[in-house]
């Protein structure tokens, strides 16, 4: 099936990734560990833009940038440098942002996502380095605000801005792209995506191959999907009413789920980009071979290996390799029990129970899931009891072996099931007669009686088989 894209939707994304796993900021030695700190306690003359201060580039930040570029299949540029992007806004006290302009450190890459109609290549335009601005907090609502509070702890943090081509055709594809990007970045161990502001998104959207609109201020992946759905609907309605879409920047209002026009007088020329005279150019293309050696196995490669090495199905391999933590967890489990059973239990069952409780895989131990799988595969408990144990561990703690005893989940012996089957037949002659007369439903009734007699500890499928065998004698 080919996706028709009936509204000619084209979406390109600019994703700002904060490299918060670095120890220090991009141009100074201030600590990046400011998230729980008092305002303006992680700043120095450099990130405050005080006169006479001199920025010096964090070597590790450049290494991380190259690593990200390589993971996104980008070319690493021969020579690059930083520029000043001039604008007056108090989020940067210097009056300019130090960023990259005509020679981004990484150019022209691609990643593969699960598109509307199968695998889809999303082209990466570029990935460049820049500094994060400080944080502004409006006192009261934005229109009636009495003033703005400014905290420069974030100012000067390393950002990588990853710009895609407009290759996504729906909000769903945009979401898949963001998820894939997050997955790759997690694998690279260059940032902690759970920290506030670790990934921020701007989107370019157009319909019917028309003019694009930029949507800013999207703070979550869910928000991105909502903002895009709204903006596409708005553009379609506007055109239907005879309006015309013009190039503009809109602001996403998360609380109301709408995009609002932002009047800006600044255009690209107004930023008056020029080379940052306080920083010397970088020639780092020769770092590539060394950085390549530090590149881990990435999600797509890991997925392919899981399929080959463990003989599991594509769907499970995808589910298990999205998050590096889950992938590592699975490999440990698969080394101890049958890898196929492990895939079902980790990908289908455990992940579902974790998602339901908004927990990640750290909330469960390899040891416990191995116990559950062993109990089931050795036929000591039913699959349903296995699920029950996982839920009990997550909700109340405890060890699977103890929970089995507490809840009396051990499967009943074969002869007890056989006895229950005989009793059920003897006690329900009408149902037996109905079944023999061709009423299939009556069988379910008798199976129910068998389960009642064994207090649900018989395997329903086995009970059914035993019952059929007995009735057909």
């Amino acid at each position, binding site marked *: 099936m080919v996706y028709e894209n009936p509204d000619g939707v084209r979406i390109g994304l600019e994703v700002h990734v904060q490299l918060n796993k*670095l*120890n*220090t900021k991009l141009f*100074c*030695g*201030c*600590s990046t560990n400011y998230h729980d700190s*008092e*305002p*303006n*306690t*992680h*700043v*120095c*003359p450099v990130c*405050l833009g005080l006169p006479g201060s001199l920025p*010096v*580039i*964090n*070597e*590790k*930040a*450049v290494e991380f940038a190259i690593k990200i570029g390589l993971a996104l299949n980008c070319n690493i540029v021969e*020579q690059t*440098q930083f520029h000043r992007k*001039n*604008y*007056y*806004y*108090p989020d940067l006290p210097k009056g300019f942002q130090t960023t990259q302009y005509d020679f981004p450190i990484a150019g022209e890459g691609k990643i593969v996502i699960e598109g509307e109609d199968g695998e889809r290549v999303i082209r990466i335009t570029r990935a460049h380095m820049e500094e994060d601005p400080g944080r*502004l*907090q*409006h006192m009261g609502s*934005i229109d009636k*605000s*009495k*003033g*703005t*509070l*400014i*905290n*420069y702890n974030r100012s000067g943090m390393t950002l990588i801005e990853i710009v895609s081509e407009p290759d996504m055709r729906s909000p769903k594809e945009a979401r898949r792209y963001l998820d894939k990007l997050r997955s790759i970045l997690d694998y690279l161990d260059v940032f902690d995506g759970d920290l506030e502001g670790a990934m921020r998104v701007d989107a370019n959207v157009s319909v019917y191959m028309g003019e694009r609109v930029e949507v800013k201020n999207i703070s979550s992946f869910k928000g991105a999907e909502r903002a895009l759905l709204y903006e596409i609907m708005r553009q379609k309605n506007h055109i239907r009413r005879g309006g015309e879409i013009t190039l503009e920047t809109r602001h996403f209002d998360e609380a109301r789920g709408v995009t609002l026009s932002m009047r800006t*007088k*600044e255009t690209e020329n*107004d930023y*008056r980009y020029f*080379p940052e*005279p306080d*920083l*010397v*150019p*970088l*020639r*780092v293309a020769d770092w590539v071979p060394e950085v390549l050696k530090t590149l881990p196995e990435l999600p797509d490669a890991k997925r392919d290996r899981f399929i080959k090495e463990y003989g599991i199905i594509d769907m499970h391999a995808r589910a298990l390799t999205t998050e590096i933590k889950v992938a590592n967890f699975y490999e440990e489990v698969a080394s101890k029990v049958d890898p196929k059973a492990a895939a079902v239990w980790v990908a289908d069952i455990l992940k579902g129970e974790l998602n339901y409780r908004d927990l990640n895989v750290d909330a469960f131990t390899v040891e416990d899931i191995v116990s559950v799988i062993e109990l089931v595969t050795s036929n000591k408990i039913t699959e349903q009891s296995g699920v029950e144990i996982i839920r009990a561990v997550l909700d109340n703690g405890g060890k699977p072996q103890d929970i089995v005893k507490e809840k009396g989940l051990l499967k009943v012996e074969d002869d007890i099931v056989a006895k229950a089957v005989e009793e059920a037949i003897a006690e329900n002659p009408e149902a037996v007669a109905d079944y023999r007369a061709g009423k299939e439903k009556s069988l379910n009734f008798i199976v129910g009686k068998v389960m009642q007699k064994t207090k649900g500890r018989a395997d329903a499928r086995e009970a059914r088989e035993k019952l059929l065998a007995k009735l057909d004698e």
Partner: protein
Amino acid sequence: MITKEEVEHVGWLARIEIDAKQSDAYAVKLNSVLDYFGQLDEVDTENVPPTYHVADIVNVFRKDVVQESMPQEDVLANTENKQEGNFKAPRIM
């Protein structure tokens, strides 16, 4: 040619107030600067590689090692407009 309007726009970008009389005068001055650059344009630079930096050096880095930041008190020492450790600015749209 730089117009009066462009002078006013550049003034706005730099958040400098320029009145009508000043903008005329600035336009004349800025145009003479541009004329000077016009002279530079006459030099043939066809085979000269661009200069990105006056010093002929590349790759100056620092290690990713934390250095002490300033005390909050010092950070806010130059302003009277502060609140709960933040700088305080007028309302910004």
